[in-house]
């Protein structure tokens, strides 16, 4: 009564196996699979894959047979046969395995998308707008497509300031003219945005009046048509007034006002943003709970709509607290994806802070015990790149940067992971013998 079946018989039977064809299936006795012909000579990976597929086929087959009352169940001889054949001790054949991993089920809340910059369609004069946020997964993860690529805004200051030599040599001739500086950033260094820092307004620097500083904002808006971010001096007493005045002269351009924080009159900045059509950067210092508090106050007390808030949870440089900055951002992003709606905002990083690390600017190590640090002009840019890239992987969207090489590499790295960079395929199969 028993009938031996070959793989081809099963395959042939399955080829016609829709509901109608089932009526014609008759099986007698046990089912046995003969996989003997698959061993030697053929590609072992192929053999393993075929073994896997036939096991699956056999299992289906056994179930169907079971439905018709024949003595074969799941785990019966049909399913077990190929596994047993391949599980022989010590390297007889490959043991087939299928890789599978689930998407994250608890990443159910998308990050808010925020637009910076108004084009003529929205009543502004920017040539294009920048969109950040909108993610439904950690950056570059396979769980969900990332809707917007990372953006880079390059710093401009409203006065000549001390900069690391490697940075300064790119800007020396434009440092007395914020408009020219901004232009150079866009035309030569491929900036998506410009940040104008009104640092001369600090009472301890030049104490430039808010009204004067606002003229510089106008100058930058005239010089370039990318969206801009406007920064104060960091003086908590004066920044609200400076940013409010700047917001007024930039009315309708949807700039990013940097920043509202808990230690200054954030309500004044929020009010200016709403009155003159801008976004608000919500800045806290490496503390997720403060970030929640400030975001909540901006939303509930100041009525800032969600689509106008970006967070700056603080960037510390590589080697100088990047571990805190990285983990703070990663925790914020994970909490947001899992539904904490006080944190579902895009993030911005003051990546320029990397230039504060002594490794990026010092001629050599101050410690005699260290190995030679090598030429500093190559250390600085990569310090900024690694600081920025780390935070990109943690969830940061917008990067405030300084060195043109750093900008180029950060863009290439993040856009590669974003999936928009096409390159000639590289055959790495024989990397061992590569001549380098």
């Amino acid at each position, binding site marked *: 009564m028993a009938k031996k079946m070959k793989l081809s018989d099963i395959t042939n039977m399955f080829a016609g196996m829709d509901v109608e064809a089932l009526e014609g299936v008759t099986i007698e006795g046990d089912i046995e699979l003969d996989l003997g012909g698959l061993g030697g000579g053929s590609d072992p990976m192929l053999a393993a894959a075929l073994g896997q597929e036939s096991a699956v086929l056999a299992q289906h087959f056994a179930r169907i047979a079971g439905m018709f009352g024949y003595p074969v169940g799941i785990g019966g001889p049909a399913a077990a046969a190929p596994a047993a054949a391949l599980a022989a001790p010590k*390297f007889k054949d490959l043991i087939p395995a299928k890789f599978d*991993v689930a998407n994250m089920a608890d990443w159910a809340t998308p990050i808010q998308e925020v637009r910076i910059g108004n084009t003529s369609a929205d009543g502004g004069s920017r040539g294009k707008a920048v969109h950040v946020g909108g993610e439904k997964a950690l950056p570059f993860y396979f769980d969900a497509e990332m809707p917007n690529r990372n953006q880079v805004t390059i710093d401009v200051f409203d006065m000549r300031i001390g900069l690391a030599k490697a940075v300064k040599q790119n800007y020396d001739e434009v440092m007395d003219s914020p408009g020219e500086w901004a232009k150079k950033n866009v035309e030569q260094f491929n900036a998506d945005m410009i940040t104008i820092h009104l640092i001369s307004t600090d009472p301890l620097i030049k104490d430039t009046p808010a009204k004067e500083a606002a003229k510089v904002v106008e100058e930058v808006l005239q010089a370039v048509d990318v969206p801009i971010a406007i920064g104060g001096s960091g003086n908590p007493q004066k920044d609200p007034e400076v940013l409010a005045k700047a917001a007024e002269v930039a009315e309708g351009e949807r700039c990013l006002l940097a920043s509202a924080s808990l230690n200054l009159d954030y309500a004044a900045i929020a009010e200016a943003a709403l009155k003159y059509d801008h976004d608000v950067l919500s800045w806290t210092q490496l503390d997720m709970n403060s970030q929640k508090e400030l975001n909540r106050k901006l939303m509930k007390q100041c009525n800032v709509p969600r689509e106008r808030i970006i967070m700056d949870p603080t960037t510390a440089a590589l080697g100088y607290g990047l571990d805190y900055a990285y983990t703070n951002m990663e925790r914020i992003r994970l909490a947001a994806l899992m539904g904490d709606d006080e944190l579902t905002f895009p993030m911005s990083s003051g990546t320029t802070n990397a230039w504060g690390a002594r490794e990026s600017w010092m001629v050599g190590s101050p410690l005699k015990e260290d190995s030679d640090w090598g030429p500093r002009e190559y250390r600085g840019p990569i310090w900024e790149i690694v600081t920025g890239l780390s935070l990109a992987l943690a969830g940061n969207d917008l990067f405030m940067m300084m060195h043109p090489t750093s900008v180029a590499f950060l863009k290439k790295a993040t856009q590669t992971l974003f999936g928009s960079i096409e390159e000639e395929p590289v055959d790495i199969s024989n990397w061992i013998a590569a001549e380098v």
Partner: protein
Amino acid sequence: MKINSPLQAYKYLPQTNCGECGEPTCMAFASKLIDRSGKTADCPPLVKEKKFAKKLAELEGLLAPEIREVIIGVGEKAAKIGGDDVLYRHKLTFFNKTKMFFDVADNMDEAAIVERVKQVADFRKFYVGNYLLLDGVAIRAVSGDPAKFAAAVKKVGETTDLPLILCSFDPAVLKAGLEVAKDKNPLLYAANKDNWKEVGELALEYKVPVVVSALNDLDALKTLAKTFADAGIQDIVLDPGTVPVGKGLKNTFTNFLKIRRAGIDGDTEIAYPILALPFTAWMAGIEDPVNASYWETVMASMFTIRYGDIMILHSMEPYAVLPEMHLVDTIYTDPRTPVAVDGAMYQVGSPTADSPVFFTTNFALTYYTVESDIASNGIDCWLLAVDTDGIGVEAAVAGGQLTADKVKDAFDKSTFDLKKDVNHNTVIIPGLSARLQGDLEDSLGASIKVGPMDSGRIPGWMEKNWPPK
């Protein structure tokens, strides 16, 4: 780890509170097991007494990390990789830093091999009380000649006791290398779809860890790992291929994410450490060597953060190595350790009444940086750590955690008296807190000198400005 509360671990302990482990109670010891700061071996009764043998075995199974730990090399410099239990460092911490191995080609002449190996072995960077170091040497069989490969492996082994990776797809070449390095427990690279039987047999014969390699094919990779595990090989490392640019690099990144997620989620057949090859940056046709090196560092950064446990790299330029080793340290630093030192007056060297007085913040990193800069240059001084909630100088000045009043409080609490304990009544303040100078003169009633913006410049500053005139 299959359990997550001390109570679950406690069930398997002797429960006698004998104290031999150094903890007052078995429950206290159980919490150390759960946070992985203690090992079962630290409990003598559990290990020694026969009646606990079964419980010990069960407990070890429950405590085993999700990702298998693999050791490469022997002795003090052996490299331990894998061993992780979480996908994000804040959930616990990541264990066993990503190890950085640098390549040597077997067709280099002997002197060049020795020079390069010494460069790898000697590179060091002082950081927060310790040296950051490089981890090993990967020898590439460029020649394809077993004798030549063996000679290179021998030379490297004579030059350093760092762990080795032997790289060839030719079992005969690998065997020649193993013969001269068999007592060094090198990592074999690699078994693939064509040579897996022979390389697997070498791994068994020489009892060494082995890489299984399948380019951008996770089914094939898992098949190889499963086959090897079934044959009794436990020390497996995964190479899903590292493509240097474009969509291929994105796929590589995705593969690393998938493998680690599956492993942490309990798929034991793929729960092994992962090998990344930033080295392939040098195959991408990037002409300028600085740009190629930068790209290699970019790749190293991606895979340091997302689940690479061991890397093979090429550039030994300090501008490549320094950020790479700092990032590894960044990601693997235990986030549970305190971020701050105690706010107090510290002595650096042997200060006297003539010695200068500095202050900085109690952020551990800031404090240790300043302290090592001063100590390394042989300066005796008083160094006050002001409690700024563990925030660095610049940010604390901006955020109001470092003010003249806070500094005054810190001096008062430390009971250090500027009028009595030193004879100059002068405080040198961080250059980044220059704006506090006036307020500090008022609150401390002392002469305030603004020091350099970076503590690395204190020695030069001292030459010009100390003692005060």
